[in-house]
């Protein structure tokens, strides 16, 4: 059973995440958590994604439960972590200049949920998320990386692929439907 999708993105991420969330099945039997790098003042990410997503999107509050069919976004200036069946927040130092850090989200998801996690790395211009995606694979989870050739910025997908050579490489518009197939297929 795969029931937690963790998505990480940076430069170009708003469009990329929006495309994925706009093409997942509306009855996806998995919770989605998102870490997107952005400026310290940017509070509009969740509302913008909510407009294009087929699933409801909101900023995570500390200890919000992970519920199938809902999307929780790391709030600006906080790390988002997976804590048992909930999320948790921290204001610890940025990791590799990033808060939220994709690695923090992915590594805690892997610890808490093991093989139930699907990690997705999208467009971005740095290497955050590569170590986290490898942690998800080590624990038996699924790794999906946006085809660097189709990414607004290829560096982050490339770094993820270097750390995770067996990740599934997909064009952006393929990722949402594939998440549906993996989660629904496994639920049956």
């Amino acid at each position, binding site marked *: 059973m795969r029931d937690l999708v963790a998505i990480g993105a940076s430069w170009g991420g708003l469009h990329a995440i929006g495309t994925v969330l706009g093409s997942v099945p509306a009855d996806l039997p998995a919770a989605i958590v998102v870490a997107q790098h952005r400026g310290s003042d940017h509070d509009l990410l969740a509302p913008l994604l909510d407009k294009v997503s087929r699933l409801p999107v909101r*900023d995570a*509050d500390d200890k919000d439960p992970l519920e199938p069919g809902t999307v929780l976004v790391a709030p600006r200036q906080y790390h988002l972590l997976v*804590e048992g069946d909930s999320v948790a927040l921290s204001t*610890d130092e940025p990791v590799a200049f990033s808060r939220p850090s994709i690695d923090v989200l992915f590594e*805690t998801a892997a*610890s808490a949920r*093991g093989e139930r996690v699907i990690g997705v790395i999208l467009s971005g211009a740095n290497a955050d998320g590569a170590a986290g995606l490898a942690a998800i694979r080590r624990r038996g989870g699924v790794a999906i990386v946006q085809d660097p050739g189709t990414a607004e910025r290829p560096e982050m997908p490339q770094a993820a692929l270097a750390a995770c050579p067996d990740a599934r490489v997909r064009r952006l518009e393929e990722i949402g439907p594939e998440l549906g197939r993996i989660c629904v297929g496994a639920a049956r």
Partner: protein
Amino acid sequence: MALGFDHDPEALELELLLDGIYRRYGFDFRGYATASLRRRVWRRANLEGLDTITQLLDRVLHDQSVLERLMKDLSINVTEMFRDPSFHRALREKAFPLLRTYPFLRVWNAGCSTGEEAYSVAIALHEEGLLDRARIYATDMNESALAQARSGAFPLERMQDYTENYLRSGGTRSFSEYYVARGTSAVFDPELARNVVFAQHNLATDRSFNEFHVIICRNVMIYFGRDLQRHVHELFLDSLVPLGVLGLGRKEAIGPPEIAQRYEPLDPTEKLFRRRR
């Protein structure tokens, strides 16, 4: 037989570490949220050149200096002056006016870490003419954080950010009036701290120690598990006067329903609440 740690043996190691620290030294981190705790523990293990959390337990039990370094890692939270300026603006504009009728004010800054927030509140109270009749109790479990707080010295390089925060929080003066540059530090006016008491208090294990008109505890309980969060919320209810004000972090809930119903919102977006009578 499944004993619950099959997919995550490291969770067992973490439990043993926290249990060992508690039983050997009395420091209780057992109610903390594990995800960020585990990251901090690993950071210390790596810095000590260790490969497992169990090795760290061994070192901690036999070498007090390792314990002290780990305690520092686990208990000091990152903070800044006027963090979330809109919160401090709401505190100034919506909470302080309610406090003017009291002849004497007690403010509790719980989990003050290195003191940036206590100084921020002192500055705002000063500008609103309330500092002379106020006492701010700024508490933390970590003595070295408190020592830094008592010094009133913060990194000079942060002052540009803090000045911007201060102005956006509704500050009415020039921020640089409040400190002098000394080397790489900005040393704040000791007059601000005249009514601030920095004291050790552990939210997990210590009781209420006074009655307060305002309690500010921001981004501290996010490090606690649900049970410990509830315990601290009960502690705050015991410590607030009727109609007293509680301020939490931007992404923190007011607690389980039976706690939440004891408060009315003062500014729910900024996580300011007022205790019902």
